[in-house]
Structure formats: C-alpha cells, structure tokens
C-alpha cells in the first residue's frame, strides 16, 4: 500500500462517520415524513397511532439511515476528488492517485506534492459534521408530525363541553380495552380464536381506538357498540350450538364404546337393557318367566293330546264328510294354537336367557366401570365436561390452561392403554371440541356482557345506584354474569350503608338521550342525578308517613343522604 493510499484511510473513516450523521438525518427525515402522514391519518381517523409507535418508526428509520451511511462503500477515487474539492488541492490527489507507479517525469514529484498536501489536512476539517438541510428537514417534519398528532389527540381546540365529552369517550375506550383484553387477548384465547372471533377482536380494537381518540360521537359509539354486541351474540349462539353438538357426539361415541364391549363378550342388546335391573327384580322376573314357561308347556301338552285324538278320529274311514270336515277344522285351530304357544315359549326362553345373561352383562359393566383406567378416563372426562359447562355459563372455565393441558395429556396416555384407543380418541376429541366451543361461547358471552354493560351505562353516564359497576355487568338478558364478592354470592350479607357512587367530575353531567328503539336495551339511560331529587322527596315523605318499617328507616335515610352528599362532592 502506497503512502498516499494509507493516508486516505483516516479520511475514509471520517467520511463514514459524517455519512452516518447525514444518513441518520435522511432516515429521520423520511421517518418523520411518514409519521406526519400517519399523524394526519390518525387525526382523520383512518389509521390510528400512538406516540410510541411514531417514535419507533422514527427511531428505526434514523437507525437504518445511520447504518446505511456507515456501511456504504467509499470509493477512493471519489474520496480523492472530494478532498481535492474541499481542501482546495486543485486536483492534486485525484491526479496523484491515478498516476501512482507511473513512469512520466512528473509522476514522482506529483506523488510527493500530494502527500505533502494531504499531511497538512485534518479529516474533521475537511469533512466537518454539519447541521444540514436533511437535519433541518427532519426537525421540521418531526415538529409537523407532532403538531398533527397533537391536533388530533388533544382537546386544546375544543370547548368545555366537547372536551368533557371526549374525556368520557376516552374512559369508555379504556373499558372497551379491558373487555377486549379479558376476552380476546389472553394467550389461550389467541391460540383458540376462530376467524370470526379474530375479526370481531379487530373491530373491538378499532372501536377502542376510536373511543380513545374520541374520533366518534356518542351516538356513533352507541351504534357501534350495538353492532359489536350483535356480532358477539351471534357468535355465542353459534358456539353454543357447536358445543351441544360436540357433547352429544361424545355421548354417542361413549354409548358405542360400551355396546362394543358387550358385543365382544357375545351379549345382546336385551341383556344390556336388563343389566340395569336390580337383582331382586331380575329374580322375580325369572321366576315369573319360568312359571309362564311351565304353563305354556302344560297348554302345549294338552293341545297335542287333543290333536292326537282328532288325528285318530280322522283315521276312521267310516266318517261322514260332514264329520270329517268338522274334525279337520278343529285340527287346524289346534295347530294354530300350538304354533302361537311355541312362539310364546321361544320368547319366554329368550327372556329367561336374557335374564340369566343380564347378570353377566352387569358383571361386564361393573368390571368395566371398576377398571382403574376406564374409571380414571371417565373421571377426567367429567372434569372436562364440567369445565366446558362452566365456561359456557360464566365465560370462565374452572381449570387453568396448564391444568387443561395436563388433563389432556393424561387422557391421551390412558386411551393408549385401552383396547380400543381409536374409539376412545374420538370420544376425547369430541369432548375437547365441546370444551373449546364452550370456551368460545364464554368469550363471546363475556364480550357481549361487557358491551351490554357499557351500553347500560349509557356510555359514560355516571353509574348510579344499582347501575353496573366495573365488576358487575347487567346485560339486557337480566342475568348477572360476574360476581366477585363471595359474601354476596353466598348471601351472607351484613346490614350496612349502601353507598351510592357519583361520578368524580363536577359540573354538568353529560348523558345521551336515546330515541326509541332504545340502543341500551331495557335500561334507562337517564342519569340518576336527574331523578334523585324526586325519589329523595318521595322517600322523605314515606318516612314522614311511617310507611317504611322502623328497622329500615335509618338505612333508607342514610342511603339518600349519601347520594346527596356524593352529588354535592
């Protein structure tokens, strides 16, 4: 490597540093431009964003620019030309670099001259780090993006009422976020969600964003909530049907499995039916059957004797045609009776045999039920069914994910030990499918309940007495889906003051008046503050007239006082 080439090294490093600085600015500029567009879309409600997301875009683009600047090749010819330009070296380096090893008379002098000149240069002076147009552009675009984002996300341009309305919508957004997370954003739910559920979850998230950004009006919000509720209910209905089908299928498979066991033992259906009889009943029935068999035999013997007599009479050639005809008729009737009795006898014999065999079938069932593997499988299956049932009712299974997985593995291992693992596997699959559907049903029910709760609150109207709180959502079905307080669920309550909860914010209360048909189900959306004075007056009047039992009077009084105090506060 010649001296001149080695001298270029430190300039190359410097160029990479300065390029990184510029590349970072270009990247930041592009990123900020993208953020500005994104912020504009966010403001218009087309594509939502957050500070953190925009920051990430900006950071990534700036970093990419920085890396590109640092890694891009620095051709030596370009470097020489650039130094010549910047340091006013009158193309000395460019020429000297080209003429390295040349044989012209001036080549050596040229090399010396170029080296001499480059030694006087400092890379940081030749390639200074400057605040250029790209940096300025990045700052301006950043400011623009921030401004657009703030315009779309801060209520500084709004009046007092509109600001409050926005605040309330944002609170609703938080509620929707909680509902969505609870139902759709658990790892379990994510892995099990169907396409329809995913779509619904996406819509919920979008709705949440719209609320958080307050990009929609209350009326639009209510309509959207209703639409989502309908979708959730529809999905829940479908999941319920599927769960029922799966459970029925599981039951059928189990029946078939048992039947298979009997067939293997050579027992028929009748024996299987009889297996459910008690021992005493079976004994009594068997005795009856035997007695009946004796009677039948006796009748048969009698009829056979009569038939022999008739046959002897018919053998007499002296019989007149009328007599013969009469005897033949009698013979025919006796034969018919004998046939009927013999059929009955066969039936009786089968019954007796079934009654005798039913003990054997019973023993098989007993043996099967007492088989530790089978017994264990049935126990585990019962647990799964209970979990599925619980999920379909309350939206929450009894078991944790880990427990379910362990159970599933255990079931599969046991099924392997059985004689007919295929049938057992089908049974287990049907059970697990039912459980899955039940969970889906639970999720959709949970979502629907959440939305209903939100709707019943009139979307941000303050929760008055009896109104749904964060933990209790009353859907329009009238059911209480979730009770967290164990004391309430067990009914062990103590007499205490029921404190009404007024909204913390002071000033005029905002509410949405819904024209018929009601968008909030069967509940009133009128804030309780509007009706409180009249009810308080009525209560006062009732107290005055001693219409309220004495033991409850104090409680009623304190109740209304607490509400009035909350309102003032």
């Amino acid at each position, binding site marked *: 490597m010649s001296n001149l080439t080695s001298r270029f090294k430190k300039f190359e490093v410097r160029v990479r540093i300065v390029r990184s600085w510029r590349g970072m600015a270009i990247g930041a500029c592009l990123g900020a431009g993208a953020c500005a567009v994104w912020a504009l879309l966010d403001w218009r409600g087309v594509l939502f964003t957050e500070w953190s997301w925009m920051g990430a875009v900006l950071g990534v683009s700036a970093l990419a620019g920085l890396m590109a600047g640092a890694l891009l090749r620095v051709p030596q010819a370009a470097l020489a030309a650039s130094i010549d330009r910047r340091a006013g070296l009158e193309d000395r380096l460019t*020429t000297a670099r080209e003429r390295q090893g040349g044989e012209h008379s001036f080549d050596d002098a*040229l090399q010396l001259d170029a080296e001499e000149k480059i030694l006087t240069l400092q890379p940081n002076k030749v390639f200074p780090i400057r605040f250029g147009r790209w940096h300025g552009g990045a700052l301006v675009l950043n400011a623009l993006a921030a401004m657009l984002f703030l315009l779309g996300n801060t209520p500084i341009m709004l009046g007092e009422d509109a600001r409050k309305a926005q605040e309330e919508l944002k609170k609703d957004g938080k509620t929707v976020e909680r509902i969505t997370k609870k139902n759709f954003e658990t790892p379990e739910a994510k892995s099990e969600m169907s396409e329809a559920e995913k779509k619904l979850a996406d819509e919920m998230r979008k709705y949440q964003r719209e609320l958080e950004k307050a990009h929609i009006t209350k009326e639009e919000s209510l309509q959207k909530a209703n639409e989502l509720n309908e979708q959730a209910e529809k999905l829940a209905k479908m999941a319920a049907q599927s769960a029922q089908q799966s459970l029925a299928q599981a039951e059928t498979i189990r029946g078939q499995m048992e039947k298979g066991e009997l067939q293997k033992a050579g027992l028929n259906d009748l024996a299987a039916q009889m297996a459910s009889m008690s021992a005493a009943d079976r004994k009594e029935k068997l005795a009856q059957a035997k007695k009946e068999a004796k009677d039948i035999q006796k009748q048969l013997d009698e009829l056979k004797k009569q038939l022999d007599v008739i046959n002897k009479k018919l053998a007499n050639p002296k019989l007149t045609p009328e007599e013969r005809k009469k005897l033949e008729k009698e013979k025919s009737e006796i034969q018919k009776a004998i046939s009927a009795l013999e059929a009955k006898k066969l039936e009786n014999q089968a019954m007796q045999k079934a009654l005798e065999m039913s003990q054997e079938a019973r023993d098989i069932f007993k043996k099967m039920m007492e088989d530790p593997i089978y017994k264990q499988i049935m126990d585990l299956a019962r647990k799964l069914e209970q979990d599925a049932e619980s999920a379909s009712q309350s939206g929450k299974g009894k078991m944790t994910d880990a427990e379910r997985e362990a159970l599933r593995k255990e079931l599969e291992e046991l099924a392997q030990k059985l004689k007919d693992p295929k049938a057992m596997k089908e049974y287990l699959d049907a059970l697990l499918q039912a459980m899955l559907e039940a969970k889906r049903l639970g999720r959709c029910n949970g979502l629907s309940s959440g939305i209903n709760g939100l709707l019943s609150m009139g979307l941000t109207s303050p929760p008055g007495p009896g109104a749904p709180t964060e933990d209790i959502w009353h859907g329009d079905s009238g059911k209480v889906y979730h009770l967290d307080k164990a004391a309430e669920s067990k009914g062990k309550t103590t007499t205490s003051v029921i404190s009404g909860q007024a909204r913390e914010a002071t000033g005029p209360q905002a509410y949405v008046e819904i024209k018929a048909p009601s968008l909030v189900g069967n509940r009133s959306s009128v804030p309780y503050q509007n009706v409180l004075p009249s009810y308080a007056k009525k209560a006062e009047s009732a107290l005055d007239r001693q219409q309220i039992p004495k033991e409850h009077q104090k409680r009623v009084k304190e109740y209304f006082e607490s509400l009035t105090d909350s309102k003032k506060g």
Partner: protein
Amino acid sequence: MSEQIDATWFCETFERVRSEVQKVIVGQHEIVESTLVGLAANGHVLLEGMPGLGKTLLVRSLSRALSLDFSRIQFTPDMMPADVTGTNVLGEGRIFEFRRGPVFSNIVLADEINRATPKTQSAMLEAMQERSVTVGGKRYELQEPFLVMATQNPVEQEGTYPLPEAQLDRFFFKLIVPYPTKDELREVVNRTTGSQEQEPQAVATKEDVLRLRAIVREVPIANAVLDYGLSLIVATHPEGEGSSPVAQRYCRFGSSPRGAQSLITAGKVRALLAGRFNVSKDDLRASLKPALRHRILLNFEAEADGMTADKVLSQVQEFVDTQDRDPIKV
C-alpha cells in the same frame, strides 16, 4: 528531483520574461500572461482590441525579452501572399532564388490581419499549421520557435475580410485587449512622454522557449480533469450528448477538437505557473474563454439577444460545473 528543478526553472523563466515585458507594457497582466502561455504551449495568439492599446508593443517586447527574431506584417487589402511568404526572384547567376518573406521569423506580428484578402490570409494557414511555406512547389520549413501573433480591430469593419473559421481555429488563444485603467493610463503616459523609455532586456533564449514547450508536455492530467475539460468542449456543441442548453440555443457551431487541445495544453502551462505538477479544473476554467471564444460560432438569435461568445462560454462553464458535483455527499 530533476522534474522539480524543471518546473522551478519553468516558473522562473516565465516570470523573468513576464517581468521584462511588463517593464514596457503597463497593466494588461492577463494579456501578457496569456500571450506567454500561448508561447509556452506552442500556439499562435490572436489579439483583438482597439488601436493604441499596446498590441504591437507587446509583441515587440516579447521578442526582445526572448531574444527571438521578430517581423511585423501590416496587412492591407492589396497585399499578396508572396508578400507574406516570400517569393522566387531572379538572382545574379540568372537563377531563381527564394527570397524569404516576413513569415520567416520566430515571432511574426500579423497586424490587422483582417484587412488582408482571404487569399493572403490563407497564405498564413500553411505557415501557422504546418510551420512551413511552399513557394514554387518547394517547401520551406520555418524556424522554431514560431509564433504568430495577429491583431485585429473589432471596429472599422468596412473594407475588412473577417477571418474564416478554419483560420481562426488555428489560433491557440484569442485575447481581448481591454482598455487600461486610469492608473495604468497614467503610468503609460508617464513612461511614454518622459525622457527615458524602458527597453526590455533579453532574459531568455530560443532554446529556453523550446525547453519550456517540452516541459509543458510532461505535465500529467487526471482522467477526471480531462473529462471535465472535454465536457466543456462538448457543452459548446449545439447538439449531441452533453450539449448545454445555452449552446443549443445560441451556437451554430461548437468548438473543434483543436479547442480541446488548446484548453488542455493551456491548462498544463497554468498548472506549472501555479507551481503544480498536475492540471486542475481551475486551470481549464482560466483558459476556457481565450481558448474557445474564437472557436464557437454564434447564431442570429445570440446576436439579437446580445449574447457574446464570452457570455455563452460563461454559461457553458456554469452548466458543466453544476454537473460536476462532489462525489461524496456528506
């Protein structure tokens, strides 16, 4: 090390000659330097300026400083080619012998060359390009160094014969001699109206001039710089790749390849004068107008718009400079 000595000698010699000429010529530094550049580059120079600006004096002073033969031809419309080249005359032994014309000199001052007829002007063609004359079918070599310095008056166009493009192209430089400034004029008056007149001394020889020319040819030029020079040439062409918008609009014809040769050679001389061993883009820029102004032919639109060759060349240079960006953007 010998190259460095050569370069230093070049600068010193050049400076000595210039100083000597400047003893007589007041001001006109650019003209003096360009004339010397033409001399060192082995090119002929066309001087254009109003009468009395010291064109003839410059040439005479130069010849004295270089101790070269000097002849002056005052061109007139009735001048014949033989008056320039010389002719065969019947000698004493009744033998035709060639009598050399004024062109047989080291430095020839072709004063008011545009007053001669084209026929006479063309007699200069062979002399300037081939450095020889042919009379009576016999070729006579001119002695080196040979430098033609022609002058022409931009006014008084009546009765003149503008130089044909082919002849103009043979001039290395065309220099526009400007009016002296007031201070320069004062100095001129003081020098020429006083009792003592400065006379230039011979500070270089014929051999020195030839050595100067040899040194110039050794100066290297980088491809990028050469490319820049060629871009300037191409940008003067009214059409073709690299043509500049101003040339497309105002030029009928652009520079010839001789223009490129002149530009590069002049750049080499200027590089040495600047104490460098390489040609720079600035050297080419400095030589652009003298080397190309007589090589581009403007159209009527240029005339109508008041565009001169120098203005066009300025814009050509701007055009090429905008394309010649720093290869490393930081």
